[in-house]
């Protein structure tokens, strides 16, 4: 099996799993109890919090554990909207955010009388900080822009947008799910007030994430219950997963440079080989400002799901932004926002590389895909067979 879908999820690092194990079984204790073993569980949570904080250049008290990226995004956006709705009802975001941001904004629009500005992006998927500045009104309470796009890998100018938010005294949330653990992040440098991350995108377990909340920044919780996470995210802590997240952060910090240089070589090689071997393809995303592991292409005159099925027959796992894979009749909202015609967007393929990938796997993929495309193009009424 060749797994090239790391932006969807990554395998849990065996060292992470190893460290988690005992917190399921012999160290099962509720961290809120008074006895010694519980206090050890409490300590494990606080150790993990330090590791997450270190990865983001934050302080441990600025980290809240959540169930993952979706919850972190919901908490930051709904939590701010609840608290600030009397001050203003306007939020600025972009057209290419993840659904865990877009659909939260749509919820606020529909149910809480919010007005949302969905900023366009350029053909590479970049948000223009000037557009952010122009969209600000006296009702704007929050800006939410992703650090890097999950489909095309384009890295947004977060630091510049952060500066604008700060100058205008507006809270700034950044969905950092695709960059955390992949590239160095300093929440201080980026000037963000909220930053979301998810463990399973960088070799941690699923079902755990974190939200960075800048010291002094307030929001109204979206869950109510016990005192855990200072009452901001109640519920008995998922100790094994939190320990796993901490370990994943530690490993990511150590491996980040190696991962980046290795995966970039492999990604660039895949891009080069596919361009040499398949006519009429385009690459989506920014040529330079792009995650080193992501390659998103559109293969003209073929549909994405068909390619994915054939890749799967060959044991290769990838993804697509075609309608058929998104569970709707529309192709990816990200590709459409780049100005790609729908019929071309249906032919998109995303390869997202990870730590375990090898050059052999890349070469195999580059051998297999051109044959698949040829076969499907032969079948396509739009492909001129000369």
């Amino acid at each position: 099996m060749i797994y090239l879908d790391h932006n969807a999820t990554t395998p849990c690092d065996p060292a992470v799993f190893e460290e988690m194990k005992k917190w399921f079984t012999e160290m099962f204790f509720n961290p809120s109890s008074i006895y010694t073993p519980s206090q050890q569980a409490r300590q494990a949570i606080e150790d993990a919090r330090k590791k997450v904080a270190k990865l983001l250049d934050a302080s441990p008290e600025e980290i809240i554990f959540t169930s993952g990226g979706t919850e972190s995004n919901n908490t930051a956006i709904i939590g701010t909207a609840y608290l600030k709705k009397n001050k203003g009802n306007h939020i600025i975001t972009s057209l290419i955010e993840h659904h865990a941001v877009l659909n939260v904004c749509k919820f606020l629009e529909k149910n809480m009388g919010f007005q949302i500005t969905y900023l366009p992006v350029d053909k590479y998927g970049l948000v223009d900080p000037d557009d952010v500045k122009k969209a600000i009104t006296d009702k704007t309470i929050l800006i939410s822009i992703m650090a890097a796009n999950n489909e095309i890998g384009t890295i947004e100018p977060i630091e510049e947008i952060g500066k604008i938010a700060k100058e205008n005294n507006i809270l700034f949330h950044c969905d950092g799910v695709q960059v955390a653990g992949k590239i160095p992040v300093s929440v201080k440098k980026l000037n963000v007030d909220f930053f979301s991350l998810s463990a399973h995108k960088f070799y941690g377990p699923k079902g755990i994430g974190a939200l960075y909340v800048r010291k002094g920044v307030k929001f109204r919780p979206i869950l109510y219950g016990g005192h855990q996470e200072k009452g901001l995210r109640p519920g008995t802590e998922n100790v094994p997963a939190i320990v796993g997240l901490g370990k994943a952060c530690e490993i990511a910090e150590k491996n980040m440079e190696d991962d980046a240089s290795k995966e970039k070589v492999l990604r660039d090689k895949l891009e080069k080989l596919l361009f040499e071997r398949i006519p009429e393809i385009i690459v989506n995303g920014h040529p330079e400002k792009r995650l080193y592991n992501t390659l998103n292409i559109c293969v003209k005159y073929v549909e994405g799901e068909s390619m994915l099925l054939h890749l799967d027959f060959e044991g290769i796992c990838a993804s697509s932004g075609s309608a058929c894979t998104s569970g709707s009749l529309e192709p990816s909202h990200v590709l459409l926002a780049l100005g790609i015609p729908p019929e071309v967007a249906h032919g998109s393929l995303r390869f997202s590389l990870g730590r375990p990938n090898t050059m052999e796997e890349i070469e195999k993929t580059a051998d297999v895909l051109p044959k698949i495309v040829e076969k499907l193009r032969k079948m396509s009424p739009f492909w001129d067979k000369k």
Partner: protein
Amino acid sequence: MYSQKLIDHFKNPRNMGRIENADGIGKVGNPVCGDVMWIYIKVGKNENNQEIIEDIKFETFGCGAAVATSSVITELAKGKTIEEAEKITNQDVIDVLEGLPPLKKHCSLLAEQGLKAAINDYRERQKTKT
């Protein structure tokens, strides 16, 4: 998500290609929606002098279900009289495939419409001939 039967038709599509000098062509679907089917038919006569679909081929741009339903409709129609072929429904296609995911039902409809469009095209051409 897909039945083994569907995967088989997707992997080994029957009657794939185009018929030069076809007697009727049905072009259905829309590239914007991600599914397009072109169905070509060649019409002949059987021993009872009835018009039959002597040959049928398809070209499809679309997902796994679109390719498989195209393949199945050509198999179902081949050799049938025009009258019989016109009665083929999308449910017949779904039955051969042993089911379709709900979101892919429109592919089976497209196949039915594609065949009907090809037959209509044939009839129109006959009219202009006479």
